[in-house]
């Protein structure tokens, strides 16, 4: 799908929102929204798993932290548009292509957040946990991870919101791709405001909504953070 819009005239008059279009397209809009959510959750979920593995490795073997940081950083620096496109010879114009690219964009922030979260657990707390007789696995699951949660969740927020913003770009791969991006590309191709607005506004709303939800989730999971006060 080409999005080159040279020569499209700005003079075409149209209302900002043609409500009839929206009414006719409620089904596709819902479908696109669900696809958008699905792509996001899968990407962040897989990213979380992979980053956890990388983080566990980097915590155990400190020397690998910088190399992993650098590699995931380079993956983040590659423009999303290009990554979607470059994967097509390998995995085709499919959702898999989109997912691979989306996952790779989450890796650096999640990796760094997990390592930072665990590193910030105070040394005295870690020592106590060890001294009281918790096994290594108990220390990790009962003490270190819960305390690392605030930092991990803040990284998760960034990764989620970034992914929501990148999903539409995968619409370059085809008209059935890209979640809400389909409307954006459609609107650009036909120079039609309504789908542009629907796609753009819903994407922004989705990003903010997920961000707020994750903040709430973090508050629920970490009640001790809110109650801190100096005595």
């Amino acid at each position, binding site marked *: 799908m080409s999005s080159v819009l040279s020569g499209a005239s700005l003079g075409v008059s149209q209302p900002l929102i043609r409500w009839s279009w929206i009414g006719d397209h409620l089904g596709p809009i819902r479908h696109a929204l669900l696809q958008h959510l699905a792509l996001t959750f899968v990407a962040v979920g897989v990213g979380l798993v992979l980053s956890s593995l990388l983080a566990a490795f980097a915590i155990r073997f400190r020397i690998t932290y910088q190399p992993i940081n650098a590699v995931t950083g380079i993956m983040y620096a590659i*423009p999303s*548009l*290009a990554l979607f496109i*470059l994967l097509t010879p390998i995995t085709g114009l499919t959702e898999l292509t989109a997912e691979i690219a989306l996952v790779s964009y989450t890796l650096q922030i999640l990796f760094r957040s997990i390592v930072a979260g665990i590193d910030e657990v105070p040394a005295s707390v870690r020592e106590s946990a060890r001294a009281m007789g918790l096994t290594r696995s108990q220390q990790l699951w009962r003490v270190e991870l819960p305390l690392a949660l605030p930092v991990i969740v803040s990284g998760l927020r960034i990764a989620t919101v970034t992914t929501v*913003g990148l999903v539409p*770009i995968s619409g*370059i791969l085809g008209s059935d791709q890209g979640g809400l991006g389909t409307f954006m590309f459609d609107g650009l191709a036909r120079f039609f405001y309504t789908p542009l607005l629907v796609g753009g506004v819903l*994407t922004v709303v989705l990003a903010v909504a997920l*961000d707020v939800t994750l903040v709430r989730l973090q508050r629920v999971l970490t009640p001790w953070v809110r109650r801190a006060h100096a005595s």
Partner: protein
Amino acid sequence: MNGVHHLFVWFNDPANWHGVNGVPRRVLEHLTLWAWSMAIACAIAVPGGLLLGRSRRTGTVTVNVANIGRAIPSFAVIVLSVIWLGLGNAPVVVALVLLAVPPIFTFAFTGVRQVDAATVESARGMGMTEARILRSVQVPLALPLILNGLRLSSAAVIATAPLAALVGSGGLGRYVIDGFAVRDFAEVSAGVTLVVTLVVCNELLFAGLVRAASRGPARRSRARSRDGRRKT
């Protein structure tokens, strides 16, 4: 490794270095977008961050700004801006400015906040005006952090500017889009290579700037605080 070979061939082809679609032209277009976006973002975020950072009152407002900024999807913003600004560079610049402002703002804010209050107090006591204090004391000491914010924004802008090709503008994104249209992956890779090169240049540039900024005043201040506050 076939791909690498094709990439090499592409860069060796002199035709790719001339004309409207030549490397110099596209790089210039890309850097033009970057320059406009960074200039506007700095004009908003640096004074904003510095002034709000100096004042004792503001606190959570700024954290919220930074957080909201992160939640903005750039492509969606471009698309929405097209409605009012049409195709071309303008909507891209809007989105890139929105992308660049939060990190610059946050780092400027934090940078000026973490300047030792005692240093500022003594400057005030010496009779410096507030403007002078900001210029001669706080900004130099906050410079490493301010530069860090600029570095991050700059890299993000360079890496996001290729989206301009989707709305009829130029820049290195054109190689990506046009290459894809004719399935010339060498061209696509060339576009990516050039973008990544610019990002690396960005890192080097700012690494040098941060080093230069960390030398004089910041080092003197660090040395002073090291001597003045020995642990008992």
